[in-house]
């Protein structure tokens, strides 16, 4: 269906289903129960899941397919955010032009950087993209303050021109970004016997974009163009010997990947009309690398999993403080309780980065294919267990 094989169609429908029913799936615990803090079904976090999912899918197109490790991808996300906020300020509070323009601007930016950086490969490419991104970050935070708002960031204001809307339309408040009148922060809250489910307009818009982005990445993976990119990863020298110039292919995928990042940035600005320079910093670029690798580079679903995983931990794990730990282990004898809390405490709350770092190292060391490979191994384990008894049955039958 949609030009996908049966297996891919199934995966596509699974992802669509997950996105559509995320408000339920993310809130498995009743509000007010002890486990409620593990609920992730609030709009802000769900929006981040899908937006960073888009970002990671785009990064994976570049890194997973061609093996070019860009350490400056956050620059495109930042450029997209700035473009989107400017659209919201100047043109209209409607998010559609903002999202489109952010994608285009990030694509143009990626074309420029990619054109220069792709002259080199390997670590030189990584350093070049890193250098460009750091330059963009430093300039955005200092000299370009009239455009970027410097360190305070760029925000929408009451007296923005908003040519299409007119100033009068704001009615005394800074208008919130909206899709033809439907404000992005609007939520429908459904209370059902102890559970609370929140359906947020912004989340569903971003989710729809993520499904489209996922579909496109699937098509790119399975296309002749995608095969060419995988050939570049496998052996670029041999490809060049056959008379093919690989540069146009790498440049094309670099721009596509930059546009994904710009789309993510535009969506981020549409959910919350704020753009800051820190989105371009190299640690932000490092984060998307972490997401992609953790989930599984070169796989379709991996980056989405990785993005969700990291954002979940960032928001949920970091909220666990020593009081919560003491509550959990309250059933133990006093000395034991204190001991366990002392041991666990550095790994949660403010120290969740430590857990993330350790987990990331474990994944790189033992599971080069990321969470996806881990899932496959577990699945294989079960399949083998299932198939073994059937074989045993088969062996028995003739004896009877």
């Amino acid at each position: 269906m949609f030009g996908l094989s049966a297996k891919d169609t199934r995966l596509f429908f699974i992802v669509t289903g997950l996105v559509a029913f995320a408000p339920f799936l993310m809130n498995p615990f009743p509000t007010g129960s002890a486990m409620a803090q593990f609920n992730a079904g609030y709009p802000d976090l769900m929006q981040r899941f899908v937006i960073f999912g888009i970002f990671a899918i785009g990064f994976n197109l570049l890194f997973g397919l061609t093996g070019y490790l860009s350490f400056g991808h956050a620059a495109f996300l930042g450029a997209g955010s700035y473009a989107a906020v400017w659209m919201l300020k100047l043109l209209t509070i409607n998010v559609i032009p903002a999202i489109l323009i952010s994608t285009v601007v990030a694509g143009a930016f990626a074309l420029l950087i990619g054109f220069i950086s792709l002259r080199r490969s390997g670590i030189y490419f990584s350093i070049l993209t890193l250098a460009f991104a750091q330059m963009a970050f430093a300039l955005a935070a200092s000299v370009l303050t009239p455009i970027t708002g410097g360190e305070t960031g760029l925000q929408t204001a009451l007296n923005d021109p908003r040519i299409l809307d007119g100033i009068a339309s704001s009615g005394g408040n800074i208008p919130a970004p909206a899709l033809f009148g439907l404000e992005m922060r609007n939520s429908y809250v459904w209370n059902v016997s102890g559970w609370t489910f929140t359906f947020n307009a912004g989340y569903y818009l971003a989710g729809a974009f993520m499904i489209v982005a996922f579909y496109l990445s699937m098509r790119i993976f399975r296309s002749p163009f995608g095969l060419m990119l995988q050939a570049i990863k496998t052996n670029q020298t041999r490809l060049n010997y056959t008379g093919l110039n690989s540069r146009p292919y790498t440049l094309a995928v670099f721009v596509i990947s930059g546009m994904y990042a710009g789309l993510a940035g535009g969506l981020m600005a549409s959910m919350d009309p704020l753009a800051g320079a820190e989105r371009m910093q190299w640690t932000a670029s490092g984060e998307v690398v972490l997401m992609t690798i953790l989930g599984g580079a070169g796989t379709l679903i991996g980056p989405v999993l990785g993005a969700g995983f990291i954002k979940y931990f960032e928001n949920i794990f970091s909220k666990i403080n020593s009081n919560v730990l003491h509550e959990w282990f309250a059933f133990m004898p006093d000395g034991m309780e204190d001991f366990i809390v002392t041991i666990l405490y550095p790994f949660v709350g403010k120290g969740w980065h430590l857990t993330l770092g350790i987990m990331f190292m474990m994944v790189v060391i033992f599971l080069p294919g990321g969470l996806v490979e881990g899932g496959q191994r577990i699945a294989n384990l079960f399949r083998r267990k299932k198939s073994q008894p059937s074989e045993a049955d088969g062996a028995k039958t003739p004896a009877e």
Partner: protein
Amino acid sequence: MDAIILQILNGLDKGSAYALIALGLTLIFGTLGVVNFAHGALFMIGAFCAVTLQRILTLSHVVIDDTKKDFLGNPLKVEVPYIYDWFGQETGAAIIDWAVPLAIIFAIPVMIIIGMVMERGLIKHFYKRPHADQILVTFGLAIVLQEIIKAYYGANPIPAPAPEAFKGSYDFGALLGFDANTIIYPYWRLVYFAFAAVVIAAVFAFLQFTTFGMVVRAGMADRETVGLLGIDIDKRFTMMFGLAAAVAGLAGVMYTPINAPNYHMGMDFLVISFVVVVVGGMGSLPGAVLAGFVLGILESFASMREVIEFLPGINQVVIYLAAIIILLTRPRGLLGRKGVMED
């Protein structure tokens, strides 16, 4: 003229730090072929060695001092470092004052052990993996190391002052015949530069003039042949990793009075030191040192008021700009060898 000399001097101390870190990175890369993203973390751990030693030296016990009274007339409790009891007040105070230079002695064995454990425990398993995997696992290690430091020492910078003798500044203006007070330069930065020069010279001498260094250089050129000659080259490369860690650590120890150490200082330096290594040419030790100083001085020139007025923001980006230009015009960096990391 005096402004130019001042900027060159200003560039030297930052350049020394870049050169030392880049030297260690290149040692690791040249010997083991590993791109070590955790090198910035080693620099940071070195700085925290100084902090740790300072804390150990000032470990105190409480003594009731009968000669002083608090406002209620009770005898005052005074914290006396143990070191005063052992060496007497004067010597003890001097030792605490000199904590940062003394930390060199403390840091060398610590850093060598950390480096060798890192190599044997983790990086050894990554020789045959792609460079991207090496970058990723060392990047993860860098996060873990910096979070451990953060868990113990907190997120705020911890000042570790230079000895009293090196506080204050030296007036170069008077020395060189310019007006007094035009070229003022802190003593400690001079010390840092001299220290860096000594360490760099020592590393080069060690590689050039000792048998061990000769074997290592041979191993860098052709690892297999050296192995075939019956030399356990892996063991020596492990030691070189320890040495590189020590160089980074020493750079960190001596940098503490210039910049109070915090847990993310390693990451801040890491990006620039990678740029330095690549600009110098991957695998070239003189290239790393040269590029370190060149970029350090370039950065300080770009921070001059006249330059900033002419090209706003140039001080923020000059290093990256230089790196991009050099990489595009001289693909192997300033002094790079052919065939290193070209695929």
